[in-house]
């Protein structure tokens, strides 16, 4: 194998993140306690550079590099951009929280950046092995981030759970991969797809392999019945870690599903479609119903995630390029919404206090009407009320399932979205209709956080009013 420098061009964004992470790792050693903000600045610069590089090297024909192990195509360009942007938001939101608690240390940024690197590798993987490497890189960093608050028992417990169940999910995935490798003799998506197209459904090993892959995907997404870890981890982990693991990884998980099921096993679509229908309906049902009973907003958002995963699956199971584009749109939009929701929770927290209960949101309109408006936008968007982008996302996935004549599934989805609307409305009620608690002090936030939250919230409105741009990006990604 000859080393070819042009191979490196398409992976420049990954390289940028890798360099930044390594740099932070080293620089952090020489920083005094007071100067830890440099870590933050470095990470932000690194992510911005990666975004710029994604834009520069992106576009055009798909390229295979590193002997076909990595691919750069429309899908990876868009998803990388989205992951980096959401990661950027997460870092900006997290800073005051970390600073208040004396945790503004290099490790947070190093772990966060490596997690992002893992996600970037996932979205550009062109073989099961690369995909798995990316996935594990991301997962290991996130396990550590969940336990980041070393003195927190709940954090340690959550990290343990996350690790055990995450390992179980990865195990399932690997098992499925091994079966598919056995049946097709390859771990690259291209040859696998060709071999599968030839053998079709006749090969039972393949069908078993798919079942395990779908289980693995279900674990990583947190779809019912593989969702048990989600609420516990969301509740136990420190909010900045939840912010990181609840937003961008959904985009990466979407990439996981797309790469494996569509790039690799598209001709077995009838097989995995049925499995996804079950996962989707169960996720929408359980997520929305159980969320109503929550009093802890992090748990509520966890169940809300589960229900949104059900909607993302709707687009995936449609099996058309329209459906994939719709699911991609949904995944990106969801990541932005989740970043906004957890961002608000961080804003509401202060030294020695974490906003976790629904009551902590009470009367936000009286405390800071701008943040209240942004949170209301996030909630209406999650509920799928026009003119926010959450509606557009739901519209597109519904369209995809009606297109394949599964009107009943669309009806099920809308019924659960009505049920879901209730608990989002309850949050808006707390924001606007209730008076703040007596003890609630004034909200103090930095300019950076305010700008980021404004961009984040208004993006939901602007994308809802003008969805054509992002949608056509999603569609061109799947046009080929």
């Amino acid at each position, binding site marked *: 194998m000859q080393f070819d420098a042009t191979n490196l061009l398409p992976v420049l964004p990954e390289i940028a993140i890798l360099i930044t992470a390594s740099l932070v790792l080293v620089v952090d050693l020489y920083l005094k306690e007071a100067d830890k903000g440099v870590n933050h600045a470095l990470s932000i610069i690194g992510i911005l550079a990666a975004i710029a590089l994604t834009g520069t090297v992106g576009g055009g024909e798909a390229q295979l590099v590193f002997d076909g192990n990595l691919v750069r195509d429309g899908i990876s360009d868009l998803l990388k951009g989205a992951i980096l942007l959401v990661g950027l938001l997460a870092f900006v939101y997290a800073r005051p929280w970390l600073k208040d608690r004396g945790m503004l240390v290099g490790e947070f940024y190093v772990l966060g950046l490596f997690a992002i690197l893992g996600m970037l590798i996932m979205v550009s993987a062109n073989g099961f092995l690369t995909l798995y490497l990316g996935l594990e890189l991301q997962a290991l960093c996130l396990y550590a981030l969940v336990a980041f608050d070393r003195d927190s028992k709940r954090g340690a417990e959550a990290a343990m759970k996350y690790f055990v169940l995450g390992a179980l999910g990865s195990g399932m995935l690997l098992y499925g991969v091994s079966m598919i490798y056995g049946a097709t003799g390859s771990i690259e998506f291209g040859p696998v797809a060709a071999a599968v197209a030839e053998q079709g459904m006749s090969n039972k090993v393949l069908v078993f392999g798919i079942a395990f892959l779908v289980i693995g995907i279900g674990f990583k997404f947190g779809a019912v019945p593989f969702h048990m870890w989600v609420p516990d981890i969301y509740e136990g982990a420190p909010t900045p870690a939840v912010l990181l693991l609840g937003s961008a990884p959904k985009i990466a998980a979407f990439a996981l599903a797309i790469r494996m099921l569509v790039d690799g096993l598209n001709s077995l679509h009838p097989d995995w479609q049925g499995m996804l229908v079950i996962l989707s309906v169960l996720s929408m049902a359980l997520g929305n119903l159980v969320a109503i009973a929550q009093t802890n907003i992090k748990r509520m958002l966890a169940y809300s995630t589960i229900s949104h995963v059900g909607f993302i699956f709707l687009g995936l199971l449609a099996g058309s390029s329209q459906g994939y584009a719709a699911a991609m749109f949904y995944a990106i939009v969801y990541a932005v919404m989740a970043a906004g929701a957890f961002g608000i929770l961080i804003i509401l927290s202060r030294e020695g206090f974490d906003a976790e209960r629904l009551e902590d949101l009470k009367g936000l309109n009286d405390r800071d009407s701008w943040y209240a408006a942004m949170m209301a936008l996030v909630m209406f968007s999650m509920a799928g*009320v026009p003119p926010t982008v959450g*509606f557009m996302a739901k519209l597109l996935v519904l369209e995809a399932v009606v297109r394949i004549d599964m009107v009943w599934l*669309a009806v099920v989805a809308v019924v659960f979205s009505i049920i879901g*609307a209730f608990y989002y*409305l309850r949050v808006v009620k707390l924001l606007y209709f209730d008076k703040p608690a007596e003890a609630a002090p004034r909200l103090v936030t930095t300019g950076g956080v305010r700008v980021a939250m404004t961009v984040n919230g208004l993006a939901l409105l602007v994308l809802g009013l003008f969805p054509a741009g992002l949608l056509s990006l999603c569609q061109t990604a799947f046009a080929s």
Partner: protein
Amino acid sequence: MTEFPLLTLIIWLPIIGGIVVLASGETSASISRWTALAFAVLTFVLSLGLWIGFDPTTAEMQFVERAAWIPSFDVDYYLGVDGISMPLIILTTFITIFVIVAGWEVITYKPSQYMAAFLIMDGVMVGVFSALDAILFYVFWEAMLIPMFIIIGVWGGPNRVYATIKFFLYTFFGSVFMLVALIYMYFQADSFSILDFHGLQLGMTAQILIFIAFLLAFAVKVPMFPVHTWLPDAHVEAPTGGSVILAAIMLKIGGYGFLRFSLPITPDASAALDWLIILLSLIAIIYIGFVALVQQDMKKLIAYSSIAHMGFVTLGFFVVFTIVQDPALSAGSVMGIEGGMVQMISHGFISGALFLCVGVLYDRVHSRDIAAYGGVVNTMPWFGAFMVFFAMANAGLPGTSGFVGEFMVILATFRADFWWAVLAATTLVLAAAFTLWMVKRVVFGEVKNDKVAALKDLDARETFNLGALAAAVLALGIWPAPLMNVMHSTVENLVVQAGSCKLPPDEREDCVLSRAEPVAALLDGTARP
């Protein structure tokens, strides 16, 4: 036809106004109020341009604007008005002015947010009436819920949270099924344009399912028995302005939906199921009339009276299907729909005015209980006069707008079925009973207590509100011809649409509608029955 984007302006001007008012902050309430009023008046003046520039001789859409919005899904920013939507748009912009004025000094908690919410509502509701693209329509339709949810929840009464969440979930529940129906029709028509939906041929099963989906959406909004229960709660808890908008305009959006979607898109299913709607309408008229009779709360009483009156609207719309099956009676079908339309506009004025009247009392005494009042006319003679006038109008006194619509609907119903008409006509007794009995207990009699004795009569602001609405009620009652004139061509075309069989060729033999020839021939918009 004009190149000037008038509709866009009428939709977005108040929304921008709302943002401006919001941005003005809470520093000076009077700046917020005056800015809000300026935007509301300006919007109203602009909307008069629709009336002036409107060509009543055609049923085609006018002031059309069309631009691609989401090109990959054929969703357009497609606006236009016809004789049905145009009067409703003017009603919307007209009523908004009074709502702003009514909240003038009464609202002290965050007045800029209050005013902004109503301005945004104004624009969004105009959007509902003028959208000709199904997705655009749906976006406006749902977007309307957000400001109303906030209005009831923030400035409402003690039980406001329950009321507003119930309101939101009921309406949300109704409309999501409509969304699925719209998407389904998109794949049939290959377009989201509502006018293309009108030309669609659909099998009976599909029509019935679509009809039910629409019915869920519109019946909740109207509201029809038995999904009306959100309305009394929402009305009672909403601030005066919120009640006015709810009664005067939001309910009309349900009626408008029937005319724009159910009648022309699913005529065969409507004809097959018209008995259901007529039954529910008659229940609303009679049963809800009795329910209104026993109310102790003025706002609740008016809310139930609204449900009964909206029963007339749906009755007028759906007797059409019985009438068109007999070609000899076809003039009656136009009358039924026109009667329903007049009833909607007139009810917008009257119920709005009645809620303002209750608001006047509530601002002074802080009670809506009928029992808390008595002999108000002694201390508030002007108010008493207005209240009696609007009560008479609500009871359908000839000379007021309330009479015209009810009379036309009863007349049309007579052509369809004698006994339906008899039942519908009981409203003349019932409405008189519950409205006038309330007036008797509140306005007349001895001065009941110290609070009533201390009442001050209307100030200039309130007199302006009630006076203007009284003028509108009288004008429409004495001379409804201009209103009928603008909508006549459109309604005729609508009757043609509703009377055409839209079943596909292989189901043609099941047609009960008089016009069984292919629909496409009638779609040039100028066809006459």
